[in-house]
């Protein structure tokens, strides 16, 4: 693989994706599996615990309901049993003592049964008796309806605790007739124990229901005996019940009217003391209202409902011993009962999370281990490859026939070093002159695949570096320019090459170091140090075999070149000497910077100059060409034409102030010169193998040297014109730069060639000069 290639095609097909999936996917899948299993188990156990808890809750609610039913039965018992007993007593008792029996029975009941509010006794003639507790004292109050019509009055008699009469009061009845009352009519019509609808006594805020029963008196009158029961006691009882932590119990009738339960008073006030309006308001009792709805749809029994993201258990049960089919509704949040299941589940979840975390850690460890194994196996693979390459390279080096031949350069050594260590440059140096100089015997540049040598370093300049070599240890310097031992070596040898790190191995002979091997920018140098050491051994053997013969050869190479032959003084190469064509005769050589010189370069291709044709004919042709060009130059007043081998440099406008006509003169001359050259070449039956390039720009000029003084021009415009000539699109074409085009586009015809990136000039357009407008 080339050092700068990104992908090595010889690599095995990459299974990176598969491996990554294996390394990441398996642990992740494992963790997900553990999470799923734990989650599943947790959910299952939560569900089973919850259902168990709910079953338990239902049992609990059933027993609670039984208890309440019992309590309500007991509560209403005095009404059901007491009414029947009282009826029998009154029916069979002496007719004259009816009131007395009524009063004594009622008084006794009122004193002993707290939920009893009052008793009524009325007959079909409109008589009415009432016994109740004295609202102001601890005794009793009896009320009798006396008189008829407008004179009818309630006569109240107040008794103390012992039954002594305290006082009498009376007040008009206001047309009160017991026979019109619901409890009277209901009892007489049904003939059985009749339960009236509950009603409110506004003054006391008490909810009352009345149980009444009718009987036939001995004198033929129909009597109705009624007992009023206060529901307040029931409400207090329901309030005091503990159902779970925050459960409620309510008693409702079939139409949803509230009979007893929590906040009874609030509901009554809201309904304006009208029992018909005392229904469950879904805004006040959302859960209870829902529970009642569920009961109405699904009937009696336990139900689960969900309200405001909370689960509730409810129970709807019939209450015994009431004719009106009252419903007992029990509601309690599920959490009150199943909370332990939630807590248990949460605890389980925490434990599960702990296990998941552990599993994740294990997964990560597995992943890391997998990656590490991968890396290590890759490293092993790399080492195996290195050792394989090493042995191959050693074989190559060993099989080099002239390895120990002192006259052979054995270039394989540096190349092998550079290849093995992936070095940019590998060099072999020899210590000469008793250690005073280091001579580069061979240096291999791997990027350009080129060998060089003969570089010499002197101890005077590089004391620290020579000491380093003399020390005899291999060293690695990551930044040779920053290390004081190698800084001067870096400056002299490495900086121009552009290398940074240095790996140095001294070559040890019999009596100490005899040279060194340097590897520059060699990332794998550390891996192949023993290979370098082996090469160092080979080099040491070669050095001792060379007996300085190679050194002598190198010295010869380094010697100064022989003096060249004395030049023939044949003028300074001007076809038109500078300034000789000026019309004013004031020509001559000027010096300095000329801001806008038009330069044209004409190159004749090698084919004509190296033509196999008759030399005399060629010379005659060139002569004719030169004469023709001189003529044109004079005609158009060019400043000079200089010949350089097979190139011609024509210059116009060589003055310190910009000459506006120079470019135009040059372009005109170019067109004429092209035509002349084309015709001369075609007459000689030769291809038009010349190209022309023009540029306008600043140029330096001056007379240089002493004897002879030579006029020379140099600057960007010269280089650019030459580039234009060399890069002209076709033979016989004139390529001009953008500057020339800008100056001349009004007067000449140009064809754009395109945009180019040109060295030193950057982005520019070039044009082909086609002719005059």
């Amino acid at each position: 693989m080339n050092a700068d290639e990104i992908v090595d095609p010889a690599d095995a097909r990459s299974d990176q994706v598969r491996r990554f999936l294996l390394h990441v996917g398996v642990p992740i899948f494992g963790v997900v599996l553990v999470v799923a299993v734990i989650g599943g188990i947790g959910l299952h156990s939560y569900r089973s615990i919850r259902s168990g808890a709910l079953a338990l809750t239902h049992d609990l609610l059933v027993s609670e309901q039984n208890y309440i039913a019992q309590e309500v039965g007991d509560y209403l018992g005095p009404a059901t049993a007491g009414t029947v007993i009282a009826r029998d007593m009154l029916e069979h008792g002496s007719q004259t003592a009816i009131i007395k029996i009524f009063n004594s029975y009622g008084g006794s009941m009122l004193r002993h049964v707290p939920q009893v509010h009052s008793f009524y006794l009325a007959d079909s003639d409109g008589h009415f008796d009432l016994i109740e507790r004295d609202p102001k004292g601890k005794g009793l109050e009896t009320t009798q309806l006396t008189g008829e019509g407008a004179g009818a009055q309630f006569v109240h008699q107040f008794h103390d605790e012992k039954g002594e009469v305290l006082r009498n009061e009376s007040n008009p009845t206001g047309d009160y007739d017991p026979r019109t009352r619901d409890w009277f009519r209901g009892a007489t019509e049904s003939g059985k124990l009749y339960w009236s609808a509950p009603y409110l006594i506004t003054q006391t805020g008490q909810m009352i229901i009345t149980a009444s029963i009718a009987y036939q008196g001995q004198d033929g009158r129909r009597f109705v005996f009624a007992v009023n029961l206060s529901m307040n006691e029931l409400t207090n009882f329901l309030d005091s019940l503990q159902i779970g932590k925050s459960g409620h119990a309510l008693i409702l009738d079939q139409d949803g009217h509230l009979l007893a339960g929590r906040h009874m008073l609030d509901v009554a006030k809201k309904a304006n003391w009208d029992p018909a309006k005392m229904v469950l308001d879904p805004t006040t009792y959302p859960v209870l209202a829902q529970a009642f709805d569920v009961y109405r749809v699904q009937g009696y029994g336990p139900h689960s409902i969900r309200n405001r993201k909370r689960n509730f258990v409810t129970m709807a049960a019939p209450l015994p011993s009431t004719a009106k089919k009252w419903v007992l509704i029990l509601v309690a949040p599920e959490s009150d009962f199943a909370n332990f299941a939630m807590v248990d589940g949460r605890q389980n979840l925490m434990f599960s999370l702990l296990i998941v975390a552990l599993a994740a850690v294990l997964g990560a460890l597995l992943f890391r281990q997998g990656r590490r194994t991968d890396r290590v196996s890759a490293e092993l693979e790399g080492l195996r490859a290195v050792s394989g390459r090493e042995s191959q390279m050693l074989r190559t080096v060993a099989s080099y026939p002239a390895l120990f031949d002192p006259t052979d350069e054995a270039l394989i050594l540096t190349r092998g070093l550079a290849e093995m260590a992936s070095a940019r440059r590998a060099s072999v140096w020899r210590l000469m002159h008793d250690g005073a100089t280091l001579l580069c015997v061979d240096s291999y540049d791997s990027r350009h695949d080129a060998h060089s040598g003969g570089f010499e370093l002197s101890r005077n300049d590089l004391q620290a570096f020579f000491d380093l070599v003399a020390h005899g240890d291999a060293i690695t310097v990551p930044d040779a320019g920053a290390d004081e031992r190698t800084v001067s070596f870096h400056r002299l040898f490495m900086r121009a090459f552009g290398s940074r790190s240095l790996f140095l191995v001294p070559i040890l002979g019999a009596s100490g170091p005899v040279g060194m091997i340097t590897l520059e920018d060699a990332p794998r140098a550390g891996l192949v140090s023993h290979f370098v050491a082996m090469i160092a051994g080979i080099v040491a053997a070669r050095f001792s075999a060379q007996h300085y013969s190679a050194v002598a050869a190198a010295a010869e190479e380094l010697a100064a070149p022989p003096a060249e032959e004395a030049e023939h003084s044949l003028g300074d190469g001007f076809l038109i000497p500078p300034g000789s064509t000026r019309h004013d005769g004031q020509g001559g050589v000027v010096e300095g910077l000329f801001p806008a010189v038009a330069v044209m370069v004409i190159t004749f291709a090698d084919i004509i100059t190296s033509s196999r044709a008759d030399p005399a004919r060629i010379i005659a042709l060139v002569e004719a060409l030169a004469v023709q060009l001189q003529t044109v130059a004079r005609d158009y007043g060019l400043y000079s034409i200089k010949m350089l081998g097979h190139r011609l440099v024509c210059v116009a406008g060589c003055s310190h102030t910009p000459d506006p006509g120079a470019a135009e003169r040059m372009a005109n001359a170019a067109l004429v010169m092209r035509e002349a050259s084309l015709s001369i070449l075609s007459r000689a039956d030769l291809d038009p193998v010349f190209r022309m390039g023009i540029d306008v720009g600043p140029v330096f000029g001056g007379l240089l040297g002493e004897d002879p003084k030579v006029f020379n021009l140099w600057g960007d415009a010269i280089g650019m014109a030459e580039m234009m000539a060399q890069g002209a699109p076709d033979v016989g074409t004139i390529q001009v730069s953008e500057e020339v085009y800008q100056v001349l586009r009004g007067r000449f015809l140009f064809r754009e060639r395109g945009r180019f990136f040109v060295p030193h000039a950057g982005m520019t357009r070039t044009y082909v000069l086609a002719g005059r407008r």
Partner: protein
Amino acid sequence: MAQDGPVLDIRAAQPSFDESGMAPVPVDLRLMPGDCAVIECRDFARATLFADLCSGMIALASGSVRFMGLDWTELGDRQLYALRGRIGRITRRGSWLDLFGTHQNIILQQLHHTTRPTDDVVADAMRLGMAFGFPGLPLTGPGRLSAADLARAACVRAFLGRPDLLVLEDISDMLPPDATVAFLEAITAARDRGAAVMWFARHAATWADYRPAVNVHLRLLDEGLFPVRGV
């Protein structure tokens, strides 16, 4: 870098006719480092197909095409593309992206396949560009270059970098004669470096100047690849 085996080794490769349209005859060819094979072929399309075959772009019914010792059919995509990065190719059909300037078309493959610094690549491209007769590196889009300039650019693109195999289809009808010297120089330099060259020519005149340096001379016909002897 020294390459021991053949650069290109085509062994009884029989192209799949259904997919390529090439005649299903087995082809054998082996190019060692430094070899220059001139393949005379009158039909441009046939030459292009054969060049595709060498580049591993034609499905084979049997046989194998190995480049640098690697069988094209056995490589994964990444390796395949990287290996193709080692081929310098002049294509008859152009293969230019008009979205970019010509300069980008030229240096793209080096930027894609290697870690060479861009400046380095640009300098290299500019050197080649000037050798082939550009004033520098052409920035204009390929669609707006003249045919001759496009042929020059194709040469620059093919010789840029250090390709191990040069597959040069015949563009001699478009390449100006003055660029021929640079072309032959570039071929010689590449061969000296250890590259193998496969040069498709339509006429014998195209490569007459280089005849002494050519060591493999073949003729590509519909019936297969035949060596030309005793020329």
